[in-house]
């Protein structure tokens, strides 16, 4: 019985690690579903294509070549090296050692592990460059205001995680005496092995086993760290690109609730005192625009969880580049943080949200930020996973204007002019054609 202790221990860790992750994923899905409904089920072939191209194919990453190519290295390494996880899990559960080697043969096994080792080395290098760019070179987009404190540390923690995991993988192979003696697939680890010259076979075995355990435990910790970090994009990039907006970026939604009222106002036959139709929805009139996360739609909320705070949006935002408060990345981070707050509130109150006197508007995002936007779509264009910060800014402007009449004074004048004389300036509509006789 005693000899099965490691297997059982392994199984328990695995169940705990995956179980906790699944619990958090369910919470994540519940929170995203707090958003309003929006139909993104049309044009499926285009959606699959976008997902394949943008999430799987990393198409938009290489708009910035240095970070883009390095990211692809880490991404490919991450996915492929995780194939090795399959063997680790089986070995752990069955108490075997490199269970695939005899099954697929030395040549193929050596090729696969050799490729993983090369990838591990490349990932290690790429991640080191990332760390350098963040902390030594201080690439500007990692040092904006909203990155102070936790977001900055979070970015580095992820990099340390990957460094440690890749190192453990190589050390594990380097101290595996049989694997080194067989000499197949140890393309990188053979250069690590000499560091352990003079170690007793028992010591090597202990190091190998420790590295193995730390590797698998590390991966499970990493998996569970995702939910608490900005790093959820490795999962959410896929649904996020699938459900992203497919219309021209300049096309803003026409609010349906407004259409109904406008039609009513413009219809000479409409009876303003008419009773609501049988079965018509009762209750509060619909709120225009968004003042809190639950006024946004679920795609916008998923956007917020998908954001990995790379800051490409902010570094291309004309308002941000000229020193304004607006940062599209902060819009996404605020939306996510507020949504998390709402979620925790629900957890603490038996699944029901209890008013906490806070909202996304003012408590997180100020009108000053919202009014600085030129709606130029640079943030939407730059996002490597098709997040749309502009749509959130617009929803919040709608709330400010239609629910609170809180537009800047000059904009109120512009709108009054449009209402009165059909132009944003105070010119008579009768003068609209004067230009033709003015030369």
């Amino acid at each position, binding site marked *: 019985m005693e000899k099965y202790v490691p297997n059982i221990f392994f199984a328990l860790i695995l169940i705990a690690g995956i179980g906790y992750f699944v619990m958090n994923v369910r919470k994540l899905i519940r929170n995203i579903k707090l958003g309003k409904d929006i139909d993104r089920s049309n044009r499926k072939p285009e959606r699959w294509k976008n997902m394949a191209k943008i999430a799987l194919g990393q198409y938009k990453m290489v*708009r910035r070549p240095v970070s883009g190519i390095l990211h692809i290295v880490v991404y490919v390494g991450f996915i492929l090296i995780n194939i090795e996880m399959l063997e680790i899990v089986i070995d752990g559960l069955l108490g075997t050692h490199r269970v695939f080697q005899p099954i697929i043969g030395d040549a193929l096994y050596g090729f696969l592990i050799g490729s993983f080792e090369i990838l591990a080395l490349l990932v290690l290098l790429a991640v080191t460059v990332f760390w350098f760019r963040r902390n030594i070179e201080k690439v500007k987009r990692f040092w904006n205001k909203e990155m102070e404190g936790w977001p900055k540390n979070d970015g580095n923690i992820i990099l340390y995680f990957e460094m440690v995991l890749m190192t453990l993988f190589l050390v594990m192979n380097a101290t595996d005496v049989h694997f080194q003696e067989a000499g197949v697939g140890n393309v990188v680890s053979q250069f690590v092995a000499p560091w352990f010259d003079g170690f007793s076979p028992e010591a090597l075995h202990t190091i190998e086993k420790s590295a193995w355990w730390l590797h698998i435990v590390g991966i499970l910790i990493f998996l569970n760290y995702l939910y608490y970090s900005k790093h959820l994009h490795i999962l959410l990039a896929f649904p996020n690109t699938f459900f992203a907006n497919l219309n*021209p*970026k*300049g096309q*803003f939604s*026409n609010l349906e609730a*407004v*259409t109904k*009222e*406008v039609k009513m*106002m*413009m219809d000479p036959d409409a009876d303003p005192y008419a009773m609501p139709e049988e079965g018509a929805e009762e209750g509060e009139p619909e709120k*225009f*625009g968004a003042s809190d996360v639950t006024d946004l739609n679920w795609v916008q909320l998923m956007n917020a969880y998908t954001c990995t705070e790379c800051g490409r949006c902010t570094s291309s935002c*004309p*308002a941000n*580049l*000229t020193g*304004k*408060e*607006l940062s599209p990345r902060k819009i996404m981070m605020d939306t996510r943080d507020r949504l998390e707050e709402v979620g925790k509130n629900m957890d603490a109150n038996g699944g029901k949200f209890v008013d906490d006197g806070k909202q996304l508007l003012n408590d997180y995002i100020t009108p000053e930020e919202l*009014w*600085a*936007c*030129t*709606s*130029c*779509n*640079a943030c*939407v*264009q730059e996002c490597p996973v098709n997040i749309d910060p502009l749509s959130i800014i*617009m929803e919040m*402007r*709608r*709330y*400010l*204007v*239609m629910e609170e009449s809180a*537009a*800047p004074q000059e*904009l109120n*004048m*512009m*709108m009054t002019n*449009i*209402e009165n004389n*059909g*132009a*944003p*300036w105070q*010119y008579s*509509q*009768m*003068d*609209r*054609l*004067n*230009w*033709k006789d*003015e030369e």
Partner: protein
Amino acid sequence: MNVPTMADMMAQGKQPEVLFWVGAAGSYDDRAKKITRAFVKILQQANVDFAVLGTEESSTGDAAKRAGNEFLFQMQAVTNIEVLNAYEVKTIVTCDPHSFNTLKNEYPGLGGKYKVYHHTQYINKLIKEGRLTIEDENLKGKRLTYHDPCYLGRANDVYESPRELIRRLGVKMTEMKRHKSTALCCGAGGAQMFKEPEKGDKDINVLRTEDALETNPQIIATGCPYCNTMMTDGVKFKEKEAQIEVKDIAELIAEANNL
């Protein structure tokens, strides 16, 4: 200028092949009116049977929508659509990317379905149909850079139409570092045109003008009346107005063709 209105046309029982949507800037702004007239000259040279709405035209509602006033936008849209549909308008051309975007993308959902062209697209169409040629003598060798309007470029992925026309002018075109999908906004979009900017360390149009100045141009070309205003102000701010002109592509073509 002889510019027929839809009402004139209807009175004569005629239907023009295209409606020229002039837009608020093109109708009232002194600088933008020059663009309007240049485009009309091009239409006339190509013998295009066009008309305008004249006093029946009203704001598309774009600025109101971007400012968050969906009510006002839809009121404007529904009113305009009633007029356009009453005249059985099928095809619209406009020099204003904001009108272009709103008419093309946001009106269909409210019952206004038209084939909508930006004037750079329409001029290309005229050239392809053999109705217009562009002379390359007048502007030959001039150093030019082109500023992409956001509502033409990123908003609608129209990057090539203006460039195709520029290539026909015989000018020496240099792209700014930020161009096409990475182009920087001029600072006017999203209703910013009608308000003072928020507190910052620089105005957006100045930053964009600096982008343009890096290419050492004699002409900054664009395809939007609002971009034109912002870039003109930027050039003045940099005290370069003696060396650099800000021109709409329609104006350049009118100049090239001696119109």
